[in-house]
């Protein structure tokens, strides 16, 4: 669960926050303003000041709020003048928006308020769809509006270019005043404020709704409030029924509004929908009893709670926020239920958890036991979180006086807070000091919004006094002796099953104090001292043997891709070895049996409702077994058994090494392959890695895959015996074939690095190479030292420029390389000879991707990225960033054998399309043609989908929303979410045309998973991509971390090192286009792909300026839009939208941008590596390795990469493990 904040106001009017991951209330830096009321949604806090004005506090955002203002400059070609700014009367404005309907004169585009600052001046946009433009950014067209082209043509009569300028909300982390309603701020001050509406069904993401009540009991709705515009645009009065004087108002997350009237009744706003954010009309609701007047209300998603003036607490039953916009009953509910407890104020969170301030003791209370099935909960539980001691000097009169001085003297001067001063006083604050330090900005409390109506005149002498320092401010607060006056939970998400550590002093087990109690320590010591002579019995047998056991259970098994059949599974563990036996259902006869040593990977491969486990045994046929279990619990039990036994066999216990390769499956499971484990298992002779093959049982022809890289120094020794009747024999060192795609069929062209071909009739040995199917010139000098019927020893050594060929330990000849030796991937032997033994010695580790043992680590993740020093980050499906804690185990293992794991959550959306066809009588209906797609289907229309029968993947997943119409589908939708097209399948658009016969709309439903894993949440900023690279070679080097926020903005993380893997904070790096993928390696080379498919690289990166200077656009490969990119010292690799890989060529240190792209299309080997493969999905470039994942889920390792052939020669195929991403950046 991501951390979130509870807010409170104490009796002095100071605002405090309590983080769900913290245990202490922390005060928001006091800047001279006390507050009466608060209302919050995540990141945005609105408050009613002691001066009865409204303030906004934006906090916790790592990405600045930036808005790009655009203005198109339009020109028309006139016969004599050429292109001129004189347009025809019917034409659009000279400066306009994109479709020409709005005047966008550059000089009239102003900052909306003083909280905003420009970032630079107006600039020309110099690209069109990723392609660079010349002619000062002009694009040409026949007429307005039409298709614009980058080149001028003879018929181009108009042209336009785009001016852009970004503005930034600079009042982050400080209070920003909202302009008063009237020039005289005291004439109609406010008495209540409420923010909500962050999840109005179908509304634009980022929408927020703000309602307020004025001292004249008028209701105000703030228009235009969103995450892009935190202060909104203006107040709009909302009429209320005659005779209703509103006292208090509350808006829930779904936009549902309840208001309390002075006479004790309540009003409910109905008709709040995405089309009408302020609702349609009011409905009256009576108070709970005749003399029970509602004093205060709080609205959640499906709950409304009220406090009456006699301090009783009431729950309104029957309210359902999700349907409240359409149904009056669901908005108003059906009755009041009295709750126990006396409360002064109440606040309901978005997940309907309830908080309150006690009427008598003024403590903050939490309602325990509130859940979807029981919205009223069980009992009130008092919070016992201490206040963090306040930096006392903060409220020293001198400080206040000091800035009071400044604020009075310079209403327009932005610099008013003693910034340095405050920062030093707050350095004692834990974590993220930046979050609360007041920013040196215009938005600080003294900088008040400029409003077109009131503008500077607000700051007349009289109003200034009341605006900031109401004379009576202290009086209002002095009467409270009690600690809390207000609690606000709107931004707080607490999981009732995992309560934060806020209730420490409640409950029986007061552990913290118990741990140090003398009686406890004595008991512990005494327990440890039992059996002082235990060394005597070390060799004694244990009564209960925990080292051998058998686990048996029923399952269904599928061999390869076949049907599932019943079986009995038996996992036997004896001391240090294990066997898996698959028995027929009778339990007597064996279907299959293999050693646990042969298992390289155990993966969950469940489908909804079918808990399944995939067991990879690549050395067996079939190489993948799938077991289906009758329940998730059984699956987890077996998964844990396999994980512990296989882990013990492979000696992968404890922390994985820093050079580990990480991979993630499509189900979100993360796996590690630890190279040190292979290294320790591989045979060594001196400095060489050795691989031995016994070929004595095999018959020629034989092919042996060679996974060593055949770098200089590699030595291959083959012993064997030549047949008595041998004529020609061949011993080839083959490389991967070259495949060419012609007419949708692949033609294969073989490559042979060394063809060694003794010919006994002709009595010589032919040496040759085949390059792309063509033999070169034969070399046949020398005699024939081999004899028929005799044994031989053939040794081939690789040097920089030649193969040295030894026969029976005597140098026979050398053969100059014609193909790079590193491309050797196969030894093939043919002809009449019996090989005995093959020994390969390699200076580098011999790495067969099929043989790697993949070990699971907990968590539900979409991407994992690592780097040389082992710092590893991950991103979940909900874009939460996680930092690896160095632990292991987690959810899939249970509590056993886990270390340093934390709770994690993630969420995903299920999507269903509703399809309809038009017919002349009834219009659009769900009656399709017989040939049509399913009326409820997936995006392709080929798979039937129904909303009612969607099963979740496992019991760990839970629905967190209902089915909702998705209004954010590419192509746009109409007001009911429909998209129209001429026919299925087609291109869909938002507006119905005359020719449109079909329409569709998308529904979605969100589900969430709760698990545990060795990951710690990084913060609130959502990420789509991340890349890490140490700046220097030493282990404690600063690590350069580049990431993309969910909007595609680039960021660098400061202060990341091995000892502080989470770093300190984000710094935003602006870019013209939203980015889709980013990669960094070495630290001074950063590449990214734009959302439109082109690539960018960053120039000006130095050790002292890791964020570099600017982006340079690199054109995408012909016909491809780049989706993902990975760079490192060995090259720049990218995957495009068609599943091809592109490698940047001619990359040198002086021209790191290279000159062109070389394309690698998936060859038949890749396409056959896993079912349903059509291309590559992800590529990861390490220091000297390139690995990729296909969209069929196979993992691949690129062979033959060398300086002369940076794109490599072919792929070695690993297991088809449903992989969707791999990171080899740590592997060295």
């Amino acid at each position, binding site marked *: 669960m991501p951390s979130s904040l509870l807010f409170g106001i104490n009796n002095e009017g100071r605002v405090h926050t309590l983080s769900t991951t913290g245990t202490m209330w922390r005060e928001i830096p006091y800047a001279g303003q006390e507050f009466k009321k608060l209302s919050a949604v995540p990141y945005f806090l609105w408050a009613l000041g002691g001066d009865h004005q409204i303030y906004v506090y934006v906090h916790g955002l790592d990405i600045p709020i930036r808005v790009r203002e655009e203005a198109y400059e339009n020109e028309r070609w006139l016969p004599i003048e050429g292109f001129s700014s004189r347009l025809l009367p019917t034409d659009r404005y000279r400066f306009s928006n994109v479709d020409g309907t709005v005047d966008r004169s550059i000089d009239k585009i102003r900052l909306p308020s003083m909280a905003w600052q420009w970032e630079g001046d107006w600039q020309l946009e110099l690209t069109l769809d990723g392609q660079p433009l010349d002619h000062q950014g002009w694009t040409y067209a026949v007429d307005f509006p039409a298709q614009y082209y980058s080149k001028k043509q003879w018929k181009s009569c108009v042209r336009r270019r785009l001016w852009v300028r970004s503005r930034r909300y600079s009042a982050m982390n400080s209070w920003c005043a909202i302009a008063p309603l009237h020039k005289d701020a005291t004439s109609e001050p406010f008495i209540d404020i409420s923010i909500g509406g962050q999840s109005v069904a179908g509304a634009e993401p980022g929408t927020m709704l703000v309602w307020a009540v004025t001292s004249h009991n008028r209701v105000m709705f703030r228009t235009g409030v969103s995450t892009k515009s935190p202060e909104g645009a203006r107040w709009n009065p909302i009429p209320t029924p005659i005779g209703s004087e509103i006292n208090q108002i509350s808006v829930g997350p779904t936009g549902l509004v309840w208001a309390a009237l002075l006479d004790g009744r309540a009003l409910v706003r109905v008709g709040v929908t995405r089309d009408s954010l302020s609702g349609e009309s009011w409905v009256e609701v009576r108070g709970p009893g005749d003399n029970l007047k509602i004093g205060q209300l709080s609205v959640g998603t499906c709950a409304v709670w009220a406090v009456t003036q006699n301090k009783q607490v009431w729950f309104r039953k029957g309210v359902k926020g999700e349907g409240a916009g359409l149904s009056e009953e669901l908005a108003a509910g059906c009755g009041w239920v009295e709750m126990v407890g006396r409360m002064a104020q109440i606040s309901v969170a978005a997940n309907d958890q309830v908080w309150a301030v006690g009427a008598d003791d003024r403590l903050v209370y939490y309602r325990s036991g509130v859940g979807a099935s029981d919205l009223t909960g069980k009992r009130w539980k008092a919070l016992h979180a201490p206040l963090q001691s306040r930096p006392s000097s903060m409220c020293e009169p001198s400080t206040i006086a000091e800035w009071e001085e400044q604020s009075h003297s310079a209403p327009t001067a932005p610099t008013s807070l003693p910034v340095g001063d405050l920062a030093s006083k707050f350095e004692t604050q834990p974590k993220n000091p930046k979050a609360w330090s007041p920013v040196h900005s215009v938005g600080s409390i003294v900088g008040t919004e400029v409003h077109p109506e009131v503008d500077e005149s607000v700051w007349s002498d009289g109003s200034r006094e009341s605006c900031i320092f109401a004379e009576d401010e202290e009086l209002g607060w002095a009467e409270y002796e009690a600690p809390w006056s207000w609690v606000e939970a709107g931004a707080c998400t607490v999981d009732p099953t995992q309560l934060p550590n806020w209730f420490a002093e409640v*409950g029986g087990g007061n552990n913290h104090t118990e741990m140090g109690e003398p*009686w*406890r320590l004595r008991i512990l010591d*005494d*327990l440890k001292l*039992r*059996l*002082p002579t235990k060394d005597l019995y070390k060799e004694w*047998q244990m009564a209960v043997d925990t080292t051998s056991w058998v686990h048996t259970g029923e399952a269904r098994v599928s061999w390869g891709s076949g049907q599932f059949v019943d079986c009995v599974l038996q996992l036997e563990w004896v001391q240090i070895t294990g066997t898996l036996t698959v028995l027929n259902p009778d339990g007597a006869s064996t279907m299959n049996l293999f050693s646990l040593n042969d298992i390289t990977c155990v993966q969950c491969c469940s489908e909804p409702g079918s808990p399944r486990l995939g067991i990879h045994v690549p050395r067996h046929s079939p190489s993948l077994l799938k077991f289906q279990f009758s329940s998730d619990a059984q699956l987890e039990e077996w998964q844990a058994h396999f994980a512990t036994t296989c882990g013990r066999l492979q000696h992968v216990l404890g922390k994985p090494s820093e050079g580990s390769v990480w991979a993630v499956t499509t189900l979100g499971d993360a796996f590690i392959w630890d190279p040190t484990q292979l290294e320790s298992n591989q045979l060594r002779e001196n400095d060489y890695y050795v691989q031995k093959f016994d070929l004595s049982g095999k018959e020629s022809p034989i092919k042996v895959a060679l996974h060593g890289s055949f770098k200089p120094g590699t030595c291959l020794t083959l012993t064997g015996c030549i047949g008595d009747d041998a004529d020609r024999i061949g011993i080839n060192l083959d490389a991967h074939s070259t495949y060419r795609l012609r007419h949708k069929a692949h033609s294969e062209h073989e490559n042979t690095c060394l063809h060694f071909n003794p010919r006994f009739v002709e009595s010589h040995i032919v040496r040759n190479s085949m390059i792309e199917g063509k033999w070169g010139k034969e070399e046949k000098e020398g005699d024939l030292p081999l004899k028929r019927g005799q044994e031989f020893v053939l040794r081939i050594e690789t040097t920089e420029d030649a193969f040295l060929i030894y026969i029976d330990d005597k140098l026979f000849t050398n053969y100059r390389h014609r193909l790079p030796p590193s491309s050797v991937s196969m030894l093939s032997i043919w002809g009449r000879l019996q090989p005995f033994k093959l020994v390969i010695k390699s200076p580098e580790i011999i790495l067969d991707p099929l043989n790697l043992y993949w070990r699971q680590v907990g968590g539900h993740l979409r991407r994992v990225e690592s780097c040389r020093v082992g710092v590893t980050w991950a991103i979940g499906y909900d874009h939460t960033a996680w930092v690896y804690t160095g632990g292991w185990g987690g959810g899939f293992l*249970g509590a056993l054998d886990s270390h340093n794991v934390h709770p994690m959550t993630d969420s995903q959306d299920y999507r269903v399309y509703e399809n309809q066809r038009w017919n002349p009588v009834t219009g659009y209906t769900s009656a399709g043609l017989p040939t049509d797609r399913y009326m409820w289907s997936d995006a392709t229309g080929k798979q039937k989908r129904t909303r009612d029968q969607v099963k979740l993947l496992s019991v760990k997943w839970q629905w967190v929303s209902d089915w909702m119409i998705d209004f954010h589908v590419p192509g746009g939708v109409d007001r009911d979410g429909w998209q129209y097209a001429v026919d299925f399948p087609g291109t869909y658009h938002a507006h119905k045309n005359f020719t449109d016969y079909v329409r569709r709309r998308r529904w979605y439903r969100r589900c969430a998973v709760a698990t545990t894993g060795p990951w710690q949440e990084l913060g609130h900023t959502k990420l789509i991509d991340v890349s890490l690279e140490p700046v220097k070679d030493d282990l404690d080097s600063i690590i350069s971390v580049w990431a993309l926020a969910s909007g595609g903005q680039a960021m660098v993380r400061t202060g990341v090192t091995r000892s502080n893997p989470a770093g300190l904070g984000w710094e935003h790096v602006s870019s013209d286009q939203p980015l889709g993928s980013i990669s960094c390696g070495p630290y001074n080379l950063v590449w990214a792909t734009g959302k439109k498919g082109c690539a960018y690289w960053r120039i000006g990166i130095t050790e002292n300026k890791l964020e570099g200077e600017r982006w340079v656009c690199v054109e995408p490969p012909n016909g491809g839009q780049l989706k993902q990119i990975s760079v490192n010292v060995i090259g720049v690799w990218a995957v495009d939208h068609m599943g091809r890989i592109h490698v940047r060529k001619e990359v040198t240190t002086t021209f790191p941008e290279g000159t062109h792209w070389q394309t690698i299309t998936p060859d038949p080997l890749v396409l056959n590596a896993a079912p349903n493969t059509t291309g590559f999905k992800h590529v990861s470039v390490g220091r000297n390795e390139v690995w990729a994942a296909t969209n069929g889920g196979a993992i691949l390792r690129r062979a033959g990469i060398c300086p002369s052939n940076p794109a490599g020669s072919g792929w070695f195929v690993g297991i088809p493990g449903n992989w969707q991403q791999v990171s080899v950046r740590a592997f060295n």
Partner: protein
Amino acid sequence: MANDREILREVWEGKLPISFQLDPDEVVELQQPDQFYLMVPRLSYFPLVTDKVRKHFLRYVANDKQDREMWLEYDGQPIKWHYPIGVLFDLLITSDDQLPWNITVHFDKFPENQIYRFNNKETVESYFMACLKEADVLKHRGQIASNMQKKDHNQLWLGLQNDKFEQFWAVNRKLMEVSSEQEHFKYIPFRCYIDDGYRQKLIKPVAEDGRRKTLQDLINEMFPGRNVNIKTHGMIPPLETPLQWMSEHLSYPDNFLHLCVQM
């Protein structure tokens, strides 16, 4: 909540060295069998850990007696198998000098008047589960144990039988929780072993005035005016140890505190 893992683990790990020997009168072979040495978990029961002992001695006894129930004897007295092994040890052995614990194995003349018969491990299991439920009645009016599923009961039993701490505590944790309404158990399940038997009494973990009761309070209520020592798990817990904590952390797997009273 029983969440002091360090203590729980240490209690669970407690083991005793036991040397088994067959009653020489029952040996029919010429050669006397070797003694059989075993490390036995304190928390377990003898019938669960003596399969190997039986196997070892079986071939030395007369054929017609091989099918009979094996029983154990120490110091001339048959051992009560239904007490946890650690309790028996604390009752019978007073000094570490007596280690290893020498136990005589019999196949003949089952002392039916003195100890219960146990035909198989199921008998032990049902006795164990009965104790566990009794303890839950005392702690939570029996609500938790009766709401558990069969598989939870199995897991408790198998965890004990196979000496698997995690497996056992994954379920036992629930039995050691306090309900959200109350911050302590209703009564503390305990047995005070004295004079060849044990005594029980309803004792609450907190006093009328809300003060947490300690072991001293328990002694005062059980043995008013007498000065006694309490031994459990081979050690003497300090008298100021709170009863609620003791029940959570020092109970045997059957959820009872087994307290050996030393006058």
